[in-house]
């Protein structure tokens, strides 16, 4: 172990971890909002809406994330219409392409998790709410979604951990997040073990924080349920 190398590369690795966190945070927020739409779309009684969201989920779950990132970053720029559109300032930046790809990807997986959560809410709950005169958005906000989220939380925790790892693919489109920094240092120094051990340890620490947060969330939501 070359401790000098570790000390020298630690600041770079930590700044890479900062970018990793940014990518995770942004894509999770956007992805969760999209996922809710996907889940509701999949459960919709309108056939075209259900079919469209179903196709979306199938598309993103049956192809590797790397293809999705490359399609958005390299692929879309092929079309003049895209290059002249108002979206181009976003789509020409690797940063935003990574965020968009990650968000669209996690929305497909999370949508299915939320859909499972919604389906797990007993129908008696809906009946009772309707008997009290609730309907539409209020029924979803007060009765269905809170219980659905509680049910979905453990699975969502796993998805968040998958997302932390998925951000490593942003390094393939020039972003220097944690994996990208580690690779660059390894190819410069040819001492891969030290750098990758540190990078791995940072990922494990991030996972630990996520699992603890999920456990805390479960306990809180469980307490509310018991009341």
């Amino acid at each position, binding site marked *: 172990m070359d401790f000098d190398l570790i000390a020298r590369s630690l600041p770079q690795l930590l700044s890479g971890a900062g970018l990793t966190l940014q990518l995770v945070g942004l894509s999770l927020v956007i992805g969760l909002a999209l996922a809710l739409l996907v889940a509701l779309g999949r459960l919709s009684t309108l056939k075209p809406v259900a079919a469209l969201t179903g196709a979306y989920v199938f598309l993103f779950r049956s*192809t590797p994330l790397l*293809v999705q990132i490359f399609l958005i970053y390299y692929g879309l720029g092929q079309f003049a219409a895209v290059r002249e559109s108002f979206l181009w300032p976003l789509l020409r930046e690797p940063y935003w392409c990574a965020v968009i790809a990650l968000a669209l990807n996690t929305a497909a997986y999370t949508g299915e998790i939320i859909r499972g959560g919604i389906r797990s809410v007993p129908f008696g709950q809906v009946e009772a709410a309707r008997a009290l005169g609730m309907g539409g958005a209020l029924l979803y906000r007060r009765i269905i979604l809170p219980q659905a989220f509680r049910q979905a939380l453990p699975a969502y925790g796993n998805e968040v951990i998958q997302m932390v790892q998925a951000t490593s693919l942003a390094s393939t489109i020039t972003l220097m997040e944690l994996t990208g920094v580690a690779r660059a240092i390894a190819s410069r120094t040819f001492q891969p073990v030290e750098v*990758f051990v540190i990078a791995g340890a940072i990922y494990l620490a991030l996972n630990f924080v996520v699992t603890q947060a999920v456990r805390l969330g479960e306990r809180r939501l469980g307490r509310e349920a018991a009341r």
Partner: protein
Amino acid sequence: MLDLLRFGSQGWGDEMAWGAAMTVAVAVLAYAIGLVLGSLTAAAKLAGNAPVRALAGTYTTVVRGVPALLVIWLLFFGGSGLVTWVAAAFGYGGRVELSAFAVGVVAVGIVSGAYAAEVIRGAVQAVPRGQVEAAKALGMHTGLRLRRVIVPQALRYALPGLGNVWQMTLKDTSLVSVVTLAELMRQAFIASGSTRQPFVFYLTAALVYMALTTASEAGFRLLERRAERGVRRAVG
């Protein structure tokens, strides 16, 4: 646009097809490594002594906790050194280089094994204790108990999970393109560079992956149905 995908010297169809074949080859070999590693690790977790259990636990926790891409890079930069060092211990003096293929198969296999281990461990634990006790009472020794009682039942419980691990392994092979192995993504990358039509080639790659995952899902469903042919159910 479809001209680009023609076979022969004019188009990229045959290059993409070879890439797809390479993807399948890497996935199958990595999955095989994963199944062996996963079974050994599950056995270590269920029946090993404390240090062996700790080793198995560290393997699954670490590998499932870091990106597959990091494992690939580690093996890419560090694999040759490790193999050279092992070869030197056996008296070989020269430097051993690992091919991109070997790096890809082993790295994806290591990741696959960590996930497979958890699936297999869960499946073995799902076999009712009474089954094992009954086998013991009949005087079966460990190997026979494993072969006749535990494995056939655990395999049925493990199939859906192992199907998921296969899908993940198949998709993870796309990452091996970063070490320039000529699989599907790498071929699409090369073709995009020389034709300036990236959308066409990445879309083609996506469709091939989609076909592969869909076909293997159907395959696993058939296997599951076959494995469950003797099971009575309350519903359906």
